């Protein structure tokens, strides 16, 4: 049920691609020209993770997003409610090459990660962070605007999906309430 937030609606294909291709095919950067993509590639950070290595932990401060170049990332949510044991974790989804996650931290101030991301195999990620975005906006504002427009679209889409899901759950709750004598 929770996986709809993390599912990538913008996935192109799962084949392994090199970093520039991954950036070109990422929904956020689709509108960028070749020159702008090369500039972006000089700005982002490529990180490699071993199987089982944590990319980020739920509740940690986050400053940006990751795009999967190769490998896979599993997303978990830790449920520390009174009803569940403190160490209970809920598997949410598995993301593969071309998918991206953590984009909310790019614009939110003092953003905290809402889930834990763990590499499930040897994984290569492109990290794109707030200082990088600010640098692009400062040095190439036109490129920055293109990225921000797409980022707005992605966040809008996530919000729309969340609103739909909340409405659905409310209807479900109402229906259950009516059934209960």
């Amino acid at each position: 049920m929770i996986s709809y937030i993390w599912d990538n609606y913008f996935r192109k294909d799962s084949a392994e691609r090199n970093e520039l291709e991954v950036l070109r095919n990422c929904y956020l950067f689709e509108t960028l020209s070749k020159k702008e993509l090369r500039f972006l590639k000089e700005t982002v950070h490529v990180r490699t993770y071993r199987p089982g290595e944590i990319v980020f932990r739920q509740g940690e401060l986050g400053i940006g997003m990751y795009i999967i170049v190769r490998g896979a990332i599993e997303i978990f949510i830790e449920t520390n409610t009174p009803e569940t044991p403190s160490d209970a974790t809920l598997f949410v989804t598995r993301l593969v090459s071309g998918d991206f996650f953590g984009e909310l931290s790019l614009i939110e101030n003092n953003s905290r990660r809402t889930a834990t991301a763990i590499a499930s195999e040897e994984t290569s990620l492109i990290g794109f962070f707030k200082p990088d975005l600010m640098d692009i906006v400062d040095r190439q504002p036109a490129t920055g605007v293109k990225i921000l427009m797409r980022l707005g679209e992605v966040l809008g889409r996530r919000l729309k999906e969340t609103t739909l899901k909340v409405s659905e759950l409310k209807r479900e709750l109402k229906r259950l309430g009516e059934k209960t004598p």
Partner: protein
Amino acid sequence: MKPTARQLELRRLNRLRLIGIIVILITLLVIILAVENLLVSSLLAFVIAYLLGPLVNYLERNGANRVGATVLVFAAAAIVLALVALGVFPYIGNALAGLQTEAPKYISGFSKLTQDGENRFSEVLGPISNSIHPTQYIESTLTSWTQNFFDQLPKFLKQFFTVMLLGPFLAFFMVKDGRSILRNLLGIVPNNTFEAALSLLHQINQQVGSFVRARLLEALIVGFVTWVGLALIQFPFAILLGVFAGLTNLIPYIGPVIGFVPALVIGLVNGLSSVDLALLILVYLIAQVIDVVFLIPVVVAKIVDLHPVTVIIVIIAGSQILGVLGMIISIPVAATLKVTIGTIYRHVTESRA
């Protein structure tokens, strides 16, 4: 989520990598401190990079590529500096030569002033003051200082030109390749501390950049106002005193007082009338009023606040380690340390919150 055995092993490897990076950074720091002129050149390079970086970004925003924009800005800055040097150096040279010739006059004049003071002191206190003879001590100290200053001048000029060549050279590469150098440096940071390190570097860069630009602009305006004011009242060595007032203004609290002392000594020795003395004080007061009323609230608002006691301790420590240069750079260094420690502390506490 409990860490698995593999994750614990990865954590251990990450810790080792972090220790490796700290060792590399400490080694770099030791090299900078050990190699002659490298510390001052690096500091100058940072100052130049923080000043010219925004201009390069501006050109890049308007379509220029990074390399071209950096070359253009540095070339323009070099031409402007060369023109200023051509105009100002002969003037400063003449002023220094004049000062060297007239130094004995000022020392003896100053000694006469202290002698007069001592005589008056004796008249009031009588035999008690016979054991106190400050004039002789002041005269010998001032003579030795002046002698040392002019003896050390060729060595100082050699160091000055080395730093003036090395500083801009380092600054050029800092502006042109700074981002890729930082990116490569961040590349060796372990995954678990990478985001924190990037965020920390960004915050330090922003705050130190604003700090350096604001303080230099403040010093430039105070120096310029002092120079113009002294020139208007036709006071000798106006440009030298203006440059000195601007530089000493970088030292908080006591800087403006230090900046005023040479002008006061020159004025007293030349036997200024009370009106001229009032005008001299007025020039320095106007410069300080402009600084306190306009520059500090508007331009220097981003400066990190340090407690007055901390400032005094830091200045004394700076002067003990690096002399006058230490006094000037002690506050920016302390402010940088405060920002760094504060950011690391915030990151650690907020991450655990």
